[in-house]
């Protein structure tokens, strides 16, 4: 594109915006008196939007101006003309009007292709299917709309770490309303019980939150990964394992084939909880103590309890074997014996243990046993190599002791010889 064409483009865009027959939103490049006035106002409610919009704002950076959302005449110097309804002034759009204002561009595939070709354009449609959208349609103006999550001004790209919808900030953004009992007081669950406000506190205890915030794993799930973002809604009964299975695919497949898939109302949540998903451990499996299976299964004649105890025992046995072998080859390694092959084999044994734990979600001990047996065989071979290393170490030290003894004898003999020669020299 030529230099002249590039310079003329904003002008053409501005002309298109103000042309009566053109209803499509276009970046306004003309004088913007909105910022001139609003940034000097003493009322922070009116001045803050101007300040935020003048800072980092994805829309301003792409050439959009206040009038593109608020209407009015940005070229007018007086308030009355600038806020003239005849010039399309609509003030701060709220509720459904806000959805419409945002959707005017964000649902326009043609327009969005010019700015963000990969971005979806069905946010408004999705929003209408969400709990938020439905509540809004039912007259609840207190629900979240676009600006509630993205902010009204100073809007940043989702990939910007300071954006309220950046993965590490999403939970806090949702919690602004969902953790506020006063805000949520008017909303009830389907059975009439009050909507809980502990989700954020629970989520903060979860392994997912730890992975996201401490492990810096941006792919770890936050609110919108399970509930959806624009179409936010709680996963329905029966859909939970599908939601978890998005990431934990193998676990979900095993679970779907299990007897529990038909019985568990809440799928994965029955054992792992929903927001407070703790780090799973072998202690969850079994029919005693704090094992989750014990909630339903107990006693020697309960097949479920026997299966859980069997698998638990197998896991513990293999894990103890890996630990013991690890300690043995660690000792040998510290003493200078090369054990990198054994270290690799132990990692393979740990993989077998992980595989067995995955297989466990089918709740059939017979399919877990062969995997555990493979792991045990590896541990056995590592143990043998570790013992061989320990024997080699003993041999080395014995050899050294003998060599040192021989050297010591030589030193003593030499010392005696030196003394004898010295005496002879003196005499």
């Amino acid at each position, binding site marked *: 594109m030529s230099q002249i064409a590039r310079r003329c483009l904003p002008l053409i865009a501005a002309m298109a915006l103000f042309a009566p027959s053109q209803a499509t939103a276009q970046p306004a490049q003309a004088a913007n008196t909105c910022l001139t006035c609003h940034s000097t106002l003493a009322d922070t409610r009116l001045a803050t939007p101007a300040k935020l919009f003048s800072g980092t704002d994805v829309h301003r950076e792409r050439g959009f101006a206040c009038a593109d959302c608020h209407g009015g005449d940005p070229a007018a110097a007086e308030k009355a003309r600038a806020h003239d309804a005849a010039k399309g002034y609509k003030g701060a759009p709220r509720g459904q009007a806000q959805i419409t204002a945002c959707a005017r561009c964000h649902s326009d595939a043609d327009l969005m292709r010019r700015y963000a070709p990969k971005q979806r354009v069905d946010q408004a449609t999705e929003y209408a299917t969400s709990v938020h959208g439905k509540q809004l349609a039912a007259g609840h103006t207190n629900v979240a709309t676009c600006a509630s999550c993205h902010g009204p001004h100073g809007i940043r790209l989702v990939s910007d770490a300071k954006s309220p919808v950046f993965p590490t900030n999403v939970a806090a953004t949702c919690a602004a309303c969902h953790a506020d009992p006063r805000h949520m007081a008017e909303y009830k669950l389907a059975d009439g019980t009050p909507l809980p406000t502990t989700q954020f506190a629970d989520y903060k205890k979860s392994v997912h939150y730890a992975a996201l915030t401490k492990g810096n794993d941006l792919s770890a799930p936050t609110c919108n990964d399970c509930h959806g973002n624009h179409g936010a809604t709680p996963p329905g009964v029966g859909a939970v394992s599908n939601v978890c299975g998005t990431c934990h695919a193998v676990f979900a497949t095993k679970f779907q084939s299990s007897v529990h898939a038909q019985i568990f109302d809440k799928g994965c949540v029955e054992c792992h909880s929903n927001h407070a998903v703790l780090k799973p451990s072998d202690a969850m499996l079994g029919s005693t103590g704090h094992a989750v299976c014990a909630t339903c299964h107990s006693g020697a004649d309960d097949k479920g309890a026997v299966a859980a105890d069997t698998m638990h025992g197998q896991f513990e046995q293999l894990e103890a074997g890996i630990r013991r072998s690890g300690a043995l080859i660690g000792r040998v390694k510290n003493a*200078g014996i090369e054990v*990198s092959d054994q270290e690799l084999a132990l990692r393979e044994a740990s993989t077998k243990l992980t595989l067995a734990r995955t297989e466990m979600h089918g709740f059939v001990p017979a399919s877990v046993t062969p995997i555990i047996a493979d792991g045990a065989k590896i541990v056995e071979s590592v143990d043998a190599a570790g013992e061989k290393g320990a024997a080699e170490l003993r041999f080395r030290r014995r050899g050294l002791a003998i060599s040192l003894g021989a*050297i010591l004898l030589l*030193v003593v003999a*030499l010392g005696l010889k030196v003394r004898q020669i010295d005496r002879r020299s003196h005499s």
Partner: protein
Amino acid sequence: MVKGVVDWLDERLDLSDLKHFIAEKGVPIHTQEVWYYLGGMTMFLFGVQVFTGILLLLYYRPSSAEAYESVQFIVTQVKFGWLIRNVHSWSANLLIALAFAHFFSVFFLKSYRKPRELTWLTGILLLFLMLGFGFSGYLLPWNELSFFATKVGTGSAGAVPVVGHFMLRLLRSGDDVTGATLSRFYGLHVAILPAITTALVAGHLLLVQRQGMSVPPGIERAQKAGKLGPLAQMKFFPNYILRDVLAWYVVLAIVAALAAFYPWELGTKADPFAVVPPGIRPEWYFLAVFYTLKLIPSHIMGFEGEQLGVVAFGIVAIVLVLVPFLDRRASRGERSPVFTVLAALGLVYLIVFTIIGHYAK
């Protein structure tokens, strides 16, 4: 039998001069005589290095693809390979420690004074060569620590004014530490440095034999003042040489014990694309210099701090080489407390900065 061989050689080569030299050579006996043995111990460890180094050469493969694996093969598969490699590593460190001890003992006893300037010169060059052996040998196993430490070490050479970039490229065989650097260090370690060292050791020994052992200036002054009579002499052969051998055996026992009880770790294979692991530092004998360069501010009076540091160390090295010519008082047999104090300060600096450098994060 030995006599038979000597007679056979004598008949053909006329060894009477040599026999006379051995029969007549004596070593003065005095209170500081114990320090004489440090040189012999250092030379013994050099012999150990040559012997174990040749054995390692039989299996070592000097390429970035095979170096690590070949050392791994030596310590795991080759019969007594672990012992040879551990002895080589430990002996190298002990050798440098003894070389420093020998250097400081010679410095404090002012043994460098006239007429032994050339002995000092060959000795100090040998000390630098030993450090060169340590630096080049450290990279050869091609493990993570040695790779990044070499990167840092050769990077410091780049800070030398004017010729820095040329030196860096000369050392690395390119702009970065690669397999080409390994080949270069290998050549340096097993051919160039040993050739120069052999020549210098021969010269050093020849000078020591020719000029005899130096008597400390304090004892010489006492003799001149009449407070001390002529020093008793110990026959070099066999009295002194047997003591020397005894000291070598003690060193051998220490190296063997260290090799068996504290095996030298091989670490993980170097990955040039890996993130620099924390705590990268050179071998202990470079720690004081490394830590000092770290402490120097990045800019001093418009000059780059590291550049100034490298220049300062260069000047110190040149001054050390020239010590016999600078310490005129010692040459005249007078007291030279300035050089004694400087040597003491240098020793304290090396010890303190090595310890701090070891524990610094």
